[in-house]
């Protein structure tokens, strides 16, 4: 029987500091064993437990898209013991992963509709996976208009800047970036994500909204979406909680009868509104 607690070995192929505060590092991991690579099937929104032997594990959303083959990408915020180790680990080293874990975004529900993606700060990882997935030629026709609103405190704190430039040039995606504090080169908007959303006022007709960001951003974005008449069933968010096992056994990440690790991390607002506010 497969032991779900044993990590599979990955090799750190490439690492890169993402932001001007140097607290976010993107890791590109390659599979050490061919058979692990073949059996690893995931959808955007799922996550992995990254394991550093001697330090422990940390849950991180997969930032690469299933359409990008041969590697997995994670962007790590340097915060605790494991994530600090993930900042210091050198290219060529072994990192364990367990996954893919969680439910991921409801890709099928998005099909045939417009997609509104709202991200804040470093919570943009799985949203990047989602957008990259639908921008792939094989999947682009599955959704109609894609609108991305992405905000950070400062321009230097936006993730995946090269890719954002690329998206800006595309004509099949509307990208709106915003910062709280601009610098002299900034060409995007200035203002908080909920306010920018209100200003752009995307139509809720036949549109699904996906929000991921700091709790405070989510809290103020929900009412704006309501005002735009998005139904609760078509608003999705991805939650984070302290986790250990990632497979619904160890107990700590439940919200009501649902576990963030196993039944989430993606929930609709309709689901969340029925649960205790334990998040």
């Amino acid at each position, binding site marked *: 029987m497969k032991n779900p607690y044993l990590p599979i070995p990955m090799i750190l192929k490439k690492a890169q500091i993402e932001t001007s505060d140097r607290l976010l590092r993107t890791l590109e991991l390659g599979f050490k064993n061919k058979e692990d690579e073949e059996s690893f099937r995931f959808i955007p929104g799922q996550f992995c437990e990254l394991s550093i032997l001697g330090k422990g594990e940390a849950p991180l959303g997969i930032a690469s898209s299933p359409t990008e083959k041969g590697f997995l990408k994670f962007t790590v915020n340097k915060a605790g013991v494991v994530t600090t180790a993930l900042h210091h680990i050198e290219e060529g080293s072994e990192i364990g992963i367990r996954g893919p874990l969680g439910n991921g975004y409801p890709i099928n529900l998005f099909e045939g509709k417009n997609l509104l993606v709202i991200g804040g700060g470093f919570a943009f990882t799985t949203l990047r996976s989602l957008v990259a997935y639908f921008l792939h030629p094989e999947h682009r026709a599955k959704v109609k208009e894609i609108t991305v609103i992405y905000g950070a405190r400062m321009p230097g704190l936006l993730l995946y800047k090269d890719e954002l430039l690329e998206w800006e040039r595309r004509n099949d995606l509307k990208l709106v970036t915003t910062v709280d504090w601009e610098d002299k080169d900034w060409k995007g908007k200035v203002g908080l994500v909920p306010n920018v959303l209100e200003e752009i006022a995307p139509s809720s007709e036949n549109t699904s909204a996906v929000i991921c960001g700091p709790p405070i951003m989510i809290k103020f974005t929900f009412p704006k979406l309501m005002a735009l008449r998005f139904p609760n069933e078509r608003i999705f968010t991805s939650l984070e909680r302290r986790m250990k096992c990632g497979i619904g056994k*160890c107990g700590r990440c439940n919200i009501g009868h649902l576990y963030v690790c196993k039944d989430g991390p993606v929930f609709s607002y309709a689901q969340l509104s029925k649960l205790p506010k334990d998040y």
Partner: protein
Amino acid sequence: MKLKLDKKNFEDFLKSLMEEYDLYAPVQPVEGVSVFKKIEQPSEVNLTQLVPQKPAKDIFFPQSEVMFCYEMAGKQSRMNSMEEIKRERILFGARPCDIEAISIIEKIFVGEEYTDVYFLEKRRKTTIIGLGCNHPLSTCFCSSAGGDPFLRAGSDLFFIDLGETYFVELLTEKGAALRKNRFFKEVDPNDLTLVKELEGKAFEKVGYSIPVEGIEKRLDLMTESSFWDRVHEKCIGCAVCTYLCPTCHCFDMVDEALNNKGQRVRNWDSCLFPIYSLETSGHNPRPTGRERTRQRLMHKFNYFPKNFGRVACVGCGRCILYCPVQFDIREALLYASAKRAKGLKRKFR
């Protein structure tokens, strides 16, 4: 199949079990705590305490357990998983509540998608000999929680103390493997009458006074009730109730390493500790005793039933017996469930 065992042969019987199995049973208190433990000598077995402080879950889901060992050589590593149990085991003398609790933990640990191999391996390789409770304690409420003092479910063999002898029932294939044991004898018709009598007395004592039925629905309406503002107040967050609870199954995973060798270990954890849900950012989704006590009670009586159709409480009473501030889960249930708890209403509101 029904048999009996003379008590004068009890120690020899245990010895005969030990020839083929690792035997686990309640023993004299270790450092002041009564536990289930691997038996070296039959004389160690001590059945005087009805519910040993530490529940039998410890035998299937130890308080601290090495999941795997690892060794690092340069940038490579080698891992060695530790789930294998080499010798078949017998758990002797667990009470119906503890045995019921093991099947409750099994519901969550053995899933369709992911199975906890450490638990399952121990479960598969353990034969359970249950022991009926002739004299339930005043804190016992198993009948209210869906069990009873003589519940056979989950046991492979079941023992009932008849004074001079043990009445023995073989219940499963695993249990039947022991039918040829040389110390088992044929049962008397009189013994069967005696069993009925004992059962009747015990049922009467333990009663059905605690309203567990229907509690799930009631709690659905109480998520934001002012009840939670008061009920947690005397709790000091020591978490003894969750550690000694036979159904609590939360754990933490930590790495212990020195130089290039180490192990990943899991330890029991508790939702009553603030650090349990504290995130690295400093955010804590359950910041006060109110949310943590709500989590403990709601998980047992609302969330778990929603997922598995049964409350995650077996009425063993340990959380009542060993709480340092006399928090009584029965009082909380009485208040939460029925109008008749008038006095309690005053107490908690």
